[in-house]
């Protein structure tokens, strides 16, 4: 309901897009969509693992790519094995798997993001994009509470917050916002995580966590396109 007001104040082009969408009914997302999302994220992390590790070398401990790869491979495997049949169950299972397999801080952080989002979706068989946006916002809030990071600290939060803000518009807009947020971490000085020990020397490097967060959001577009 709050969103209606938001849309009303949006640019004309966006309003008409929203109208079209509303008149057709918001597309419903089922467990299959969420499995495709996780599979697309895993494939993307696979493709970009070297880049993530390279970004993590100057300001981290050079394991972000391999950690994320191990985690998302395990997610794909467990989703195939257990075949959860609601959106909430898919995300909760994926989150639990990330917590137990990643081995670095991104495990509990991404795990909390997905698990909390999954809990927010409850046991509905299908959810709207708006419900997904609200659930991810709850997930991002939980990540900020867990890690203590806020926007501007040069963390995954810098990609996730703008992404969730743009999710009301479209997956494409969310993906673009996440990518922009990740790129914008480059001039920032890290205030959380291992990179924060480097102080000013953390400036000039794009944050690996924000970069992998952008991959996760971009995978939504892929999942919707299939």
């Amino acid at each position, binding site marked *: 309901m709050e969103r209606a007001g938001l849309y009303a104040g949006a640019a004309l082009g966006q309003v008409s897009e929203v109208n079209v969408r509303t008149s057709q009914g918001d597309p419903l997302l089922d467990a299959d969509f969420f499995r495709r999302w996780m599979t697309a994220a895993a494939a993307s992390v696979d493709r970009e693992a070297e880049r993530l590790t390279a970004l993590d070398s100057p300001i981290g401990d050079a394991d972000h790519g391999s950690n994320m790869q191990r985690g998302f491979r395990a997610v794909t495997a467990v989703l195939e094995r257990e075949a959860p049949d609601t959106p909430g169950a898919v995300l909760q299972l994926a989150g*639990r798997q990330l917590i*137990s397999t990643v081995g670095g801080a991104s495990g509990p952080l991404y795990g909390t993001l997905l698990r909390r989002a999954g809990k927010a979706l409850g046991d509905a068989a299908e959810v709207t994009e708006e419900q997904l946006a609200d659930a991810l916002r709850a997930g991002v809030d939980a990540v900020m509470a867990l890690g203590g990071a806020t926007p501007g600290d040069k963390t995954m939060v810098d990609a996730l917050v703008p992404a969730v803000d743009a999710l009301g518009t479209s997956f494409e807009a969310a993906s673009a916002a996440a990518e922009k947020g990740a790129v914008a971490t480059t001039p920032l000085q890290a205030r959380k*995580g291992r990179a924060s020990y480097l102080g000013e020397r953390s400036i000039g490097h794009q944050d690996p966590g924000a970069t992998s967060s952008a991959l996760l959001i971009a995978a939504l577009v892929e999942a919707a396109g299939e």
Partner: protein
Amino acid sequence: MSDSSKKMVGIVLVSHSAAVAESVAELATGLAGGGVTAPVAAAGGTADGGLGTSAELVSQAAFAVDQGAGVAVLMDLGSAVLTVKALLAEGDELPENTRLVDAPFVEGAVAAVVTASAGADLAAVEAAAKEAYTYRKE
């Protein structure tokens, strides 16, 4: 565990390094002196022996030291802290009455194990470990 009727608080030591977790466990148990010492378990490194944190090792360690009097978990930094927090939020991955203890790793572990070995309850063990933050070295 021993047949002692007195249940003791269990201590779990979580470090990025298996060697660090095990050595601190050995140090703390050694300093707790003779007699029956509280159960201590090290959960260091990843499951494949690398540097990092394994949620499964943490969970196993916590159940291994749980005698029913509560479990105090001490961590070094980063993913160790976040993993324990995420496990506590999960609900069923750690024994009931498991507490994250915010304390310096080595000094806090010694204080926790000595206090728990004396038969103190979980709140007293936590307080002793936290107090280690106030021991200045200069």
